[in-house]
């Protein structure tokens, strides 16, 4: 194909009118708006699945001594309901909204890496199908969404449910990390001129901060899942106490992920509310800096308070006291937010349209959920109410009354932009009131049930005084929520078919997504208004009294290279993964295990091979330097040396493995070999991946792809390679050197 023919072909492919005719356009799309909608639809499908699971559970609990479902089925139901709602409903819905609106709000044409974006999305259905496949074959995990050890181990859960659960979460976790990297890079590198970080709309700001939290938290879960899968598949015993493993370590790692996860779900919801309340109060947000800053506070605090999920484990008074204290601190930044939202509404011209109704309900219900959350920070109270329905009520007030209400507000707020049609206000009000009555009816009374002693996760209960009617109220109300969901879907369906045209800016909002058509064109914007403040459309509509200019028009961040930015973010997430594995190694090897210990390892030989690896970082750097000088040959030869040195290192590791294996030390011998093979094995995989990447880069370089051009790929592989070497510094220290000093 000659040049011009190729250009014509590319233009045909890129032409939206031509592409729209392709049957598979939605399946092969890399457009952030379509991917956003796909996320939302996927979330909806799983919402129906998770909702039905919840309704079956409520039916089972409607009357005492009920036998609608068997105990084991009930266990599957609550496990699937929790996992589905968190990982397959709320996260996809929030990622979908972020996907659609973050690029629009910053005036970008798309996400930074559209294909990575599509990849991240398609992992969601893959993970969801994996998870629900186990349900369909009647063998789903029965061990709860946090899958406590040792219940999650083969002796106690010998069938495949937990494996499906773990693999599915691993798949979803990888997708989430991809999305986080993409969001960070998009916000840092693709902002329109004038859209400085100080001027970001709060929804974008909070998704940006949240993406860092995803990078910090999800790899920790991945670490735990990997250990669990190794335990189950290779007969090791990370978490099996009978063989010296530690179930408590699972709890620590899980909640080190699990608590930030709560905020991963909540922070984008805060962002939604921070967008909608000002628009429908006709006032700018009160105290932007405090709302934005408190988000950072919540994100940072959330990483350091996980042990409050473990007050009943028996960690000792000092642990309990410190974590009770730090947990209570979270009330400050969340309180700041609630205060700011209320202050925004105070003396505003409030328009109680459906999105605003949902936000007001969010405010009240989230406050309730927050206050019962603080009550759980009081250790003795926590001992009494842990794993009772009081806790169930608490986290549903946060997750449904808070987060889901915010998502519904967002759906009603942004639907006109996504479809070009208005939703019916009347049906919107119906759905809202059904939802409010249903939600509060279902969960308010569960506080009393919990305080009356009803335990979480029991499949049925005896006919104790008060329990029967309270459960019945809860069940009946749950069906009001189901009705609300149906009304919402009906509303959406009707609006798509017959809804009134929305126009560009039906709510008279001020952020950039309302500056384009509804729905936006493929490339988003014809032209952007000038951006000098946090409300560019206000300035545009009111040139005589614009908002004060915020900060300078440029910030340093806009100069960052997107490839570099993405690979650094990726390295950060991998750092979390390796950090988890390294700490697990320390945990099990500070005191030598019975059987083989780190003293079996050959420090001398490994030291020499390590020098090769460290030297390869140097040669990699020389290779990049040669490319900067414009010397393709220099670059290739330095790259070849790098690959050779990396190969020597991997061969050395292979020798070490061979020696251990011939001496009968396998991964399931004892906890030393388990942690050793896991940690060095994953490092080895990373080295091999690095080598493959370098081979590809070298192939391209030999073909002359990089001559006289910047080579972002070389830079990315370089940073990845340095990262792998830095990880080895820590692994070498902890695995080979430290045990000899202790």
């Amino acid at each position, binding site marked *: 194909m000659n040049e011009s023919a190729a250009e014509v072909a590319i233009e045909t492919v890129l032409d939206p009118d031509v592409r729209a005719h392709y049957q598979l356009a939605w399946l092969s799309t890399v457009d952030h708006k379509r991917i956003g909608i796909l996320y939302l639809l996927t979330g909806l499908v799983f919402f129906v699945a998770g909702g039905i699971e919840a309704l079956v559970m409520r039916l089972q609990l409607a009357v005492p001594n009920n036998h609608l479902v068997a105990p084991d089925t009930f266990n599957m139901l609550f496990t699937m309901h929790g996992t589905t709602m968190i990982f397959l409903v709320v996260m996809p819905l929030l990622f979908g909204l972020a996907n659609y609106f973050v690029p629009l709000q910053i005036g970008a044409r798309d996400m930074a890496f559209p294909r990575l974006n599509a990849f991240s999305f398609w992992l969601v259905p893959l993970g969801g199908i994996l998870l629900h496949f186990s349900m369909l074959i009647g063998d789903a995990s029965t061990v709860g969404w946090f899958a406590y050890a040792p219940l999650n181990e083969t002796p106690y859960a010998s069938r495949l449910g937990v494996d499906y659960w773990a693999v599915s979460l691993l798949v979803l976790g990888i997708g989430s990390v991809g999305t986080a990297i993409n969001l960070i890079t998009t916000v840092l590198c693709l902002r329109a001129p004038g859209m400085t970080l100080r001027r970001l709309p709060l929804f974008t700001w909070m998704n940006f901060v949240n993406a860092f939290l995803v990078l910090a938290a999800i790899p920790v879960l991945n670490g735990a899942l990997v250990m669990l899968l190794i335990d189950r598949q290779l007969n090791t015993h990370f978490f099996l106490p009978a063989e010296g493993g530690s179930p408590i370590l699972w709890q620590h790692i899980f909640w080190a992920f699990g608590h930030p996860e709560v905020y991963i779900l909540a922070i984008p919801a805060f962002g939604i509310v921070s967008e909608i309340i000002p628009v429908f109060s006709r006032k700018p947000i009160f105290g932007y*800096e405090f709302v934005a800053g408190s988000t950072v506070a919540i994100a*940072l605090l959330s990483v350091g308070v996980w042990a409050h999920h473990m007050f009943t484990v028996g960690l000792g008074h*000092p642990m309990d006291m410190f974590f009770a204290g*730090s947990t209570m601190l979270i009330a400050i930044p969340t309180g700041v937010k609630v205060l700011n939202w209320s202050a925004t509404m105070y003396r505003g011209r409030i328009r109680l349209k459906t999105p605003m109704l949902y936000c007001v309900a969010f405010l009240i219900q989230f406050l309730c959920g927050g206050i019962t959350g603080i009550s759980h920070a009081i250790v003795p109270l926590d001992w009494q109410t842990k794993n009772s329905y009081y806790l169930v009520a608490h986290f549903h007030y946060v997750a449904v009354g808070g987060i889901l209400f915010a998502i519904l507000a967002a759906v009603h707020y942004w639907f006109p932009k996504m479809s070009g049609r208005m939703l019916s206000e009347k049906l919107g009000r119906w759905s809202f009131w059904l939802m409010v009555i249903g939600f509060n009816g279902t969960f308010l009374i569960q506080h009393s049930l919990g305080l009356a002693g009803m335990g979480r996760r029991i499949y049925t209960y005896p006919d104790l005084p008060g329990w029967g009617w309270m459960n019945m109220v809860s069940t009946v109300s749950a069906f009001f929520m189901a009705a609300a969901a149906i009304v919402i879907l009906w509303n959406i369906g009707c609006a798509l078919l017959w809804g009134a045209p929305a126009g560009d800016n039906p709510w008279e909002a001020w952020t950039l997504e309302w500056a384009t058509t509804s729905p936006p064109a493929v490339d988003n914007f014809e032209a952007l208004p000038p951006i000098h403040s946090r409300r560019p459309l206000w300035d545009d509509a009111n040139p005589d009294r614009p908002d004060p200019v915020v900060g300078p028009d440029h910030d340093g*961040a806009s100069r960052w290279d997107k490839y570099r930015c993405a690979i650094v973010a990726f390295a950060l997430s991998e750092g979390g993964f390796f950090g988890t594995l390294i700490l697990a190694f320390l945990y099990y090897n500070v005191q030598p295990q019975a059987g083989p210990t780190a003293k079996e390892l050959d420090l001398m030989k490994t030291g020499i091979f390590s020098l090769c690896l460290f030297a390869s970082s140097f040669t990699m750097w020389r290779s990049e330097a040669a490319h900067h000088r414009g010397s393709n040959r220099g670059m290739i030869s330095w790259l070849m040396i790098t690959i050779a040195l990396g190969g020597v290192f991997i061969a050395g590791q292979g020798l070490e493995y061979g020696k251990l294996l011939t001496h009968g030390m396998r991964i399931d011998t004892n906890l030393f070999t388990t942690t050793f093979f896991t940690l060095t094995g994953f490092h080895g995989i990373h080295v091999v991946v690095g080598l493959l990447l370098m081979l590809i880069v070298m192939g391209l370089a030999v073909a002359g792809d990089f001559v006289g051009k910047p080579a972002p790929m070389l830079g990315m592989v370089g940073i990845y390679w340095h990262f792998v070497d830095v990880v080895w510094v820590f692994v070498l220290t902890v695995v080979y050197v430290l045990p000899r000093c202790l």
Partner: protein
Amino acid sequence: MNNLIFDWVWSPLAALCAAAALIVYFCRVRWSRRGWWLLAAVAVYLLTLMSPLAALAQGYLFSAHMLQHILLVLAVPALALMALPGSARMPARFARLLNPGVCWACGVGAMWIWHAPALCNAAATSRLVSVGQTLSLLLLGGMFWWQLLAPDEGQRIAPLHGVVYLFAACVACTVLGIILTFSPVTVCRAYLNPVDRLGIAPILKGTWGMTAARDQQIGGLIMWVPMCMVYLGAIFGQLARWYSVPAETVSTAS
């Protein structure tokens, strides 16, 4: 609680250093409201080294030693730097040396190195090493804070970089805190069997319920939780600094 609150430790060297700092400062800098920061720094310094906290840290409690450690690295140098007048500048050749990477490594290194079992023990048993430790903590802490609190705005790190700087420090100290909290190995053997010079061991063991393991756990937790709160507070300082950059001045400058 018996006479614990009267168990002050007289340290002529510390008093001398404090006096020297005050004299040098007030000879060279005219009194302004900033001077209060220096007074606060000196007060914290003296309380750290002479109060019952110091008595507890001398051979009794690892956790008391940890509190001292944190006050010396984080509180005293930060307060002292805030006392410096805006005109104070680091000479250029030192300033070049003090790049963010070096300063970060110093601040975090001050936490890690002194908790290597051998060094921790040496500091708890030898007077000389202990003095060296105090000096190094103040110095390294000062280097860490210099990036954030240098009197001259131009010698400070950019605010958003400051957030990363502090967050990374928080992570590094959290990891150390976690290791100390959960480690079955005694980090500082000197605290295992204290010589009961002051007759307070019964209070510690009985009333406070302190055991060696619990003592180390509390020490680790102090490093893990409250310390991160200090960094977190400083992160807000950076965010406030970042948001307060005015529109006009920088636009004209750039």
